[in-house]
């Protein structure tokens, strides 16, 4: 029998450490990898956003060229959605969900690692377009007539990069689903799961059903551009509206994939820092499921001006408005959670409190756009830009920042500075409203979105100026956060199990950061907010469901890294196949390499290893 793996050893050389991170299948480490990867792309997307705002600072500006501007908006949108927001949420899901349900790991540790590397290499592939040839320039929606007409390889980078990253996302989604279905600790019934776990569950279900259409759509795009197909070429019988449908059949649920986990994060934060259980828990769960379900029925509200006809528009308009109902239920439940509570304004709580007005603003403008005839005016104007930034930044990004502060001690064992955290919040929050509030009016005043520049004398100058200043404030907020992270890491003051002192869910019952096996004994869950119940009864920790036994753990593996590397290489081959001789061989080599690694994985048994009772006892004792 193999002994405890190297993950418990201390003091390793850089090479060994790198190898450890490349091969890790530990959900907590993969969570951190997601945070690093997502954080990197978040900063990248932020820089793109700043360039966009500087270009629009004054009328007739030529800070960047028209073509480069289109690349900036495309990459900003694509990066923020696929490579920043989703991976950052995945980071928290990975790190926290298994802890919340009392599991030792996710259902498929190997696939978890594979999912991360596919996201990372997909993002890398996409961003290499800045240095090779040209970046994609048809908007993050990449509407077909333009994306087919777009010269150079920009759109090819988009298609292949997203295909790789999307496959990784799908794997992560299935992994979370199975983890939550199968790996819950005894007593952790569905209706005792923390809201963050619930929203992860529903968001993962959305991933499962939303990403396959995207995969198909991107394949169509790839085949049209690189392999002579004619799906979107109307002169050959093709139809560009197909792309729009497929994209939004994916794209609308995608919005909920982002916002539902954000709802989950805020549900946790509200209840912890109001020191009160979540008001209307079962209604919250039901609303989450309903939002997820309705999220699939409304995609055509992105296409009201396409010319689908009044009947289709009317149906999708009414369905869209219906989503307001469960969302409203959530808002009121949060309000009633803090009502009568004992509100402590920590940094995460500050974000949660900032979220309510911001998100309500974004929500109501969403309902307005649901009114199809009104949307004829709003669609593709700056009103839309304002709306979705209110939802995505006011909802998702605030949630990510809240979660960063909230779970940082659990993930890294040390607290981010509250003082700097609050400074970040105020810069970010004020900057955010400054940037986007006035954009509603810009849209109503006739400013279309995705414009590279605008003429003087259209009444848009002042608001654009204010908007850009707001963006600078947001950037300052993010810089303060980065400084906070650096300082905190350097100081490295260790904290205990429950540094917020009001933790309610299972993750706060174990050390920060948790040992690699999470729970020395599988916990027994006796109700909603199980750690809170234990604390009420004077226990510090959790009730065990079993005696100390040997723990089965998965082996680390480098195969996910190489498997993805093969696809990454094959992507370049596919793209340059037609103009370079080396294209086809590289394509074949990359695919063969991936298949080889898959073969190795399936033929070589990997049964994991056991941590023995004695080793666990030793480690647990060493900790006390």
């Amino acid at each position, binding site marked *: 029998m193999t002994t405890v793996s190297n993950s418990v050893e201390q003091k390793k050389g850089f090479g060994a450490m790198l190898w450890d991170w490349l091969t890790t299948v530990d959900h907590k480490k993969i969570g951190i990898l997601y945070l690093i990867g997502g954080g990197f792309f978040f900063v990248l997307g932020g820089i793109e956003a700043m360039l966009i705002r500087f270009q629009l600072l004054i009328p007739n500006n030529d800070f960047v060229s028209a073509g480069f501007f289109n690349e900036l908006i495309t990459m900003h949108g694509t990066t923020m959605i696929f490579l920043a927001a989703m991976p950052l949420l995945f980071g928290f899901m990975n790190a926290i969900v298994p802890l919340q349900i009392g599991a030792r790991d996710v259902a498929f540790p190997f696939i978890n690692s594979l999912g991360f590397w596919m996201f990372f290499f997909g993002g890398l592939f996409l961003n290499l377009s800045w240095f090779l040839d040209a970046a994609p320039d048809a908007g993050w929606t990449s509407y077909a007539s333009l994306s087919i007409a777009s010269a150079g390889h920009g759109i090819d980078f988009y298609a292949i990069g997203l295909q790789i990253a999307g496959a990784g996302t799908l794997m992560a989604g299935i992994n979370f689903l199975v983890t939550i*279905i199968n790996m819950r600790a005894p007593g952790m019934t569905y209706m005792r799961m923390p809201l963050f776990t619930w929203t992860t569950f529903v968001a993962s279900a959305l991933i499962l*059903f939303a990403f396959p*259409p995207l995969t198909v759509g991107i394949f169509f795009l790839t085949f049209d551009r690189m392999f002579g197909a004619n799906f979107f070429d109307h002169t050959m019988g093709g139809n560009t509206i197909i792309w729009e*449908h497929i994209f939004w059949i994916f794209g609308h649920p995608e919005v909920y994939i982002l916002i539902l986990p954000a709802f989950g994060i805020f549900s946790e934060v509200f209840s912890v820092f109001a020191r009160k259980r979540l008001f209307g828990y079962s209604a919250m769960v039901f609303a989450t499921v309903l939002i997820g379900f309705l999220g*699939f029925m409304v995609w055509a509200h992105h296409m009201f001006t396409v010319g*689908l*006809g009044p009947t289709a528009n009317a149906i999708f308009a009414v369905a869209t408005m219906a989503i307001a109902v469960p969302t409203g239920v959530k808002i009121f439940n949060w309000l009633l959670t803090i009502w009568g509570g004992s509100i402590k304004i920590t940094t995460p709580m500050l974000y949660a409190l900032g979220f309510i007005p911001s998100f309500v603003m974004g929500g109501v403008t969403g309902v307005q756009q649901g009114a199809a005839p009104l949307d004829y005016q709003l669609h593709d104007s700056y009103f839309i830009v304002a709306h979705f930034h209110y939802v995505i930044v006011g909802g998702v990004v605030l949630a990510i920042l809240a979660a960063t502060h909230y779970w940082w001690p659990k993930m890294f064992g040390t607290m981010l500075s509250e003082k700097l955290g609050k400074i970040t919040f105020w810069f970010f929050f004020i900057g955010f409203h400054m940037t986007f509030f006035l954009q509603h009016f810009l849209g109503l005043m006739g400013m279309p979105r995705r414009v590279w520049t605008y003429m003087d004398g259209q009444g848009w100058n002042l608001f654009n100026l204010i908007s850009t200043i707001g963006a600078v404030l947001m950037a300052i907020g993010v810089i303060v956060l980065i400084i906070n992270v650096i300082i905190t890491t350097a100081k490295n003051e260790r904290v205990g199990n429950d540094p917020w002192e009001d933790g309610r869910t299972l993750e706060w019952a174990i050390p920060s950061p948790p040992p690699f096996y999470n729970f020395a004994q599988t916990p027994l869950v006796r109700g909603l907010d199980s750690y809170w119940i234990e604390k009420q009864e004077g226990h510090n920790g959790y009730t065990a469901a079993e005696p100390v*036994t*040997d723990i089965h753990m998965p082996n680390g593996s480098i195969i996910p890294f190489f498997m993805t590397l093969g696809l990454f290489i094959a992507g370049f081959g596919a793209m340059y196949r037609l103009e370079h001789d080396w294209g086809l061989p590289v394509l074949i080599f990359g695919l063969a390499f991936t298949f080889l690694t898959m073969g190795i994985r399936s033929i070589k048994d990997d049964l994991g290893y056991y941590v023995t009772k004695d080793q666990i006892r030793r480690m647990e004792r060493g900790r006390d």
Partner: protein
Amino acid sequence: MAHDIEIIEKTPAEFEYKKRRSDRLMRSQLMMFALMIFMTLISFAAVQAGFSAYFVIPVVLLLAAVQVGLQLYYFMHMSEKGHGLVAFFMYGGVLLAFLTVLAFVTIIWW
């Protein structure tokens, strides 16, 4: 060892019961297979016979749907215990599949 699967030896009676049950299941699956072949034959025959499209299309679609149901429930055992959640997700997928196809045949009309 503690972490190994507990091996439960069946009594001869239990074993006989299990065998009988699985034989019965196999027979019913064979019947379903015959039914599926039969339905396929009808579908092809209906088309070859050259009936009106308004008659043939609903019939072949219905037969296909029934066949798929048989595959899912008899061959893939979706009706058995422990498949509740799985069935929920499959139905979710089927519903979305239906919506997608419906949208593509109604609102892409040119």
